[in-house]
């Protein structure tokens, strides 16, 4: 009796790189062995938020000892952007934010590079700068007066005179009328602070022009996207730029888009020696990207039975000097902007507003965390006004499978309800505040959330599997493992599908030369699209192998299978090792090679947003806090977070992602804020940008895995990493309210804000 090996799907599976990472052998930015003849690049950054500037003594810098090349905006005037080219590679005449690159140099040593840049004197003629979105919208100062001339702006709904970069709108029913007739209407504004991805590994890369190709070893999340942007900026054909992905020490979205990589490619083009660049911590904070602050203005209405009848929401994002990297997020915000509820009358407006802050880039699921920070606190308040419990009110209005949410999108089966039950159960839900000490009150709060899995237009994913005698099974992918377990997932699935030992499989470094130049790979929600591509590749590969053996054994293919690394015939019981077959070759000394590629692209018939929408990941959270009523000091005592992952292919891996997301959720809810002083970042180290430590963990942290299979996902699975953070802030905010009776509507939640709100409440002022 031949049985299929108990499958490794749904079983523990460690991270592929774990052993290398834990023995110090992984190659992160700055870890590359110096290459022969290597040069070191440094960048000169703007110190003013908005100014006309001039560089003096550039020639002196160029001729400084050890300098191999130096570029300024005068030498290379070009623009950068994936969809909208609203950034300059090197500033040419005006700077638009502090930290904008002015010059890049390559020299024999880092010290020589520094010394050369020190020779450049920058004179600024300051211009009025605007940092606040309200002020920006008044349009007295324009961040991008020549906006309309940038490539890509024609596809945007913007108004450069008001610094409006882009607007998205969604409307259903008659929200104004419904509001007027509603039983209860609640209206508030919610705000958040700018954040930083703050990966422990700062940005770095090595570039080397070899002939007419610039080869780059990068530590980024999206080599294909970056290759396209860099090539266009340098006006090179795509095949003249090659990016090879290396180990990434944390990205969270901060290493998706081109930051220093474009400058490095430009300076490497000038020389024929390898050039290395590695940012300092201060540069990482002050000269890469920030995650934008949000302001949400929400009006929500319910009828006397507690049914939501209308929502009017405006989400404004302060995207700094560039919207390009954030455009995709705006679409997600539009789709998720109601929260996971059925509301018949809706109007949502999503605005991106330019200011003189550093360019914006999304961070993990945080834009959606901020949307839910608003919606889910609002839901709690509305529940109270209609006299329902937070749980009942949400369940009563929840989106369910079969709901037609958008013209082209019908909701699939979802675990939203389980997320609510499981998380509240985990913290032993009690809806009332409890005194837990002198001056101490303990309260609990919950939140639900959802997050669209949305494929960017024109993007695909591809997996190529090759089986041969030399390397057994090599895999070429176009996504990057940034610690979320992508390579483990690939390995696990191939081992399962081909039924071969895990040890045979090696995933090659992601290399843009592996696919044709125009390839645009998806870089987020990878499980979804890569998983689908992978299944196509394994099916094709298996077909090839079995047809080959079928000819050799003169047996019909339908008799054959691969089982635990052996090729077997169910009919004749014949069996041979697949490995031996590969190693033996085809006879006549020629190697035997099987190779198959699978591809997945979202439906491209029509680029409408809801046609690119694949699914909604469902999430749920429950938090408990204890608050000192005299000082506002609070401690998060419990936090539970659930994601409906469809099917947990690697359960411990999923739980690890969940726990990490919850910790990041706490960190971004109570600690983090990028501080600026007149546009100049002052949060430039971990002292001034505190992130959570082990001391900030709650006593009890519950990762909850919910599995309502997704019929269209690989094995019924959905992604997890981006979604785990979504409701943490809202649940904590709701718990603070439950404990104290005051509501904090501005992130981060600090003890001082809670104290201030308690004081206002005591004086009878509006909280």
């Amino acid at each position, binding site marked *: 009796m031949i049985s299929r090996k108990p499958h490794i799907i749904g079983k523990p599976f460690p991270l592929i790189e774990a052993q290398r990472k834990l023995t110090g052998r992984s190659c992160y930015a700055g870890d590359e062995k110096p290459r022969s003849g290597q040069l070191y690049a440094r960048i000169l950054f703007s110190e003013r938020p908005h100014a006309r500037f001039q560089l003096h003594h550039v020639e002196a810098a160029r001729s400084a000892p050890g300098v191999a090349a130096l570029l300024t905006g005068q030498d290379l005037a070009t623009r950068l952007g994936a969809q909208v080219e609203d950034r300059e590679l090197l500033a040419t005449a005006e700077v638009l934010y502090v930290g904008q690159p002015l010059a890049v140099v390559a020299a024999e040593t880092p010290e020589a590079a520094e010394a050369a840049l020190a020779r450049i004197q920058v004179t600024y003629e300051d211009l009025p700068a605007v940092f606040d979105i309200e002020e920006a919208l008044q349009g007295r100062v324009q961040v991008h007066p020549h906006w309309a001339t940038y490539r890509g702006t024609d596809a945007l709904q913007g108004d450069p005179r008001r610094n409006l970069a882009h607007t998205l709108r969604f409307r259903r029913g008659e929200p104004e009328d419904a509001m007027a007739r509603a039983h209860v209407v609640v209206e508030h504004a919610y705000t958040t602070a700018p954040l930083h991805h703050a990966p*422990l590994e700062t940005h770095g890369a090595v570039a080397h022009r070899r002939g007419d190709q610039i080869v780059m070893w990068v530590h980024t999340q999206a080599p294909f996207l970056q290759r396209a942007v860099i090539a266009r900026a340098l006006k090179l054909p795509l095949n003249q730029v090659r990016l090879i992905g290396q180990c990434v020490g944390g990205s969270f979205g901060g290493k998706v888009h081109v930051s220093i990589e474009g400058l490095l490619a430009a300076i490497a083009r000038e020389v024929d020696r390898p050039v290395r660049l590695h940012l300092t911590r201060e540069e990482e904070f002050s000269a890469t990207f920030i995650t934008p602050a949000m302001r949400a203005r929400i009006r929500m209405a319910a009828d006397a039975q507690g049914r939501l009848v209308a929502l009017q929401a405006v989400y404004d994002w302060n995207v700094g000097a560039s919207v390009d990297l954030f455009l995709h997020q705006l679409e997600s915000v539009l789709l998720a902007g109601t929260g996971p509820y059925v509301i018949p009358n809706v109007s949502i407006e999503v605005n991106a507003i330019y200011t003189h802050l550093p360019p914006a880039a999304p961070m993990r699921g945080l834009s959606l965390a901020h949307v839910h920070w608003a919606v889910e606190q609002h839901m709690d308040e509305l529940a109270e006004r209609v006299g329902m419990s937070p749980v009942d009110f949400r369940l009563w209005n929840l989106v369910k499978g079969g709901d037609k949410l958008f013209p082209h999108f019908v909701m699939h089966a979802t675990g939203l309800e389980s997320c609510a039950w499981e998380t509240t159960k985990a913290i032993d839900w009690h809806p009332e505040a409890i005194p837990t000490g002198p001056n101490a009150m303990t309260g609990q709060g919950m939140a639900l959330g959802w997050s669209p899995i949305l494929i960017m237009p024109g993007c695909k994913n591809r997996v190529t599997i090759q089986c041969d005698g030399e390397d057994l099974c090599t895999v070429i992918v176009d996504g990057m493992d940034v610690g979320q377990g992508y390579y483990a997932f690939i390995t696990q699935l191939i081992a399962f599908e081909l039924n071969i030992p895990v040890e045979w499989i090696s995933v090659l470094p992601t290399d843009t030369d592996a696919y044709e130049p125009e390839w645009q790979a998806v870089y987020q929600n990878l499980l979804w699209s890569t998983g689908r591509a992978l299944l196509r590749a394994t099916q094709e590969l298996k077909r090839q192998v079995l047809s080959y053996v079928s000819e050799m054994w003169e047996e019909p293919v339908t008799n054959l299978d691969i089982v635990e690394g052996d090729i077997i015939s169910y009919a004749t019981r014949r069996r041979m090792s697949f490995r031996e077959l590969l190693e033996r070759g085809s006879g006549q000394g020629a190697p035997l090679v099987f190779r198959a590629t699978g591809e997945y692209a979202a439906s491209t018939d029509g680029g409408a947003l809801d046609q690119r929408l694949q699914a909604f990941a469902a999430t749920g959270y429950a938090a408990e806090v204890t608050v000192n009523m005299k000082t506002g000091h609070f401690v998060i005592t419990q936090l539970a977070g659930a994601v409906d992952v469809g099917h947990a292919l690697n359960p411990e891996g999923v*739980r690890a992602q969940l726990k*990490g997301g919850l910790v990041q959720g706490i960190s971004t809810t109570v600690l983090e804020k990028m501080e600026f002083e007149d546009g100049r970042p002052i949060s430039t180290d971990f002292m001034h940008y505190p992130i959570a430590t082990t001391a900030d963990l709650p006593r009890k942290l519950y990762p909850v895995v919910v599995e309502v299979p997704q019929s269209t996902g690989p094995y019924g699975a959905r992604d997890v990493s981006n979604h785990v953070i979504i409701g943490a802030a809202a649940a904590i905010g709701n718990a603070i309210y439950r404990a104290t009776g005051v509501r904090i509507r501005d992130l981060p939640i600090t003890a001082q804000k809670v104290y201030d709100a308690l004081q206002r409440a005591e004086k009878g002022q509006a909280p």
Partner: protein
Amino acid sequence: MKHAISFILNQEEIQLTVDSHRTLLDVLRDDLGLTGAKQGCDTGECGACSVLLNGVVVNACMVLAPEADGAEILTVEGLADEEELHPLQRSFIDHHGVQCGYCAPGMLIAAKALLNRTSRPHEEEIREALVGNLCRCGAYPDIIKSIQVASRARR
């Protein structure tokens, strides 16, 4: 100013000449090619460059290279015994104590320092021992678990 220094690094004697102002981290990474200790902040805030200096955990970015003269140093590269992984490393693999992995070498060293002085630490002690090691992925719960399991497995 140049200093001819010698120290024991991962049980091997090292002799070299260093400038006064360079840090132990510079020397490990640039001169000796040991890049296991990471450069995360250069301000002693993140712990990614943690090494054992005479048996206690320090941030190598905050130690001057000449201070290492005569010292015994252990980096993550010296943790495994030949081919055999250290129980901590094994446990980090088994319990998902590593995500992006940039903090992992420092975490392992901080954990080793803890186990050197407390054979079976309880959760609170582990938390306290790791406050100087930042993990942006938020993998702390699994890191703590990895250390706890490893310490229990030891004789």
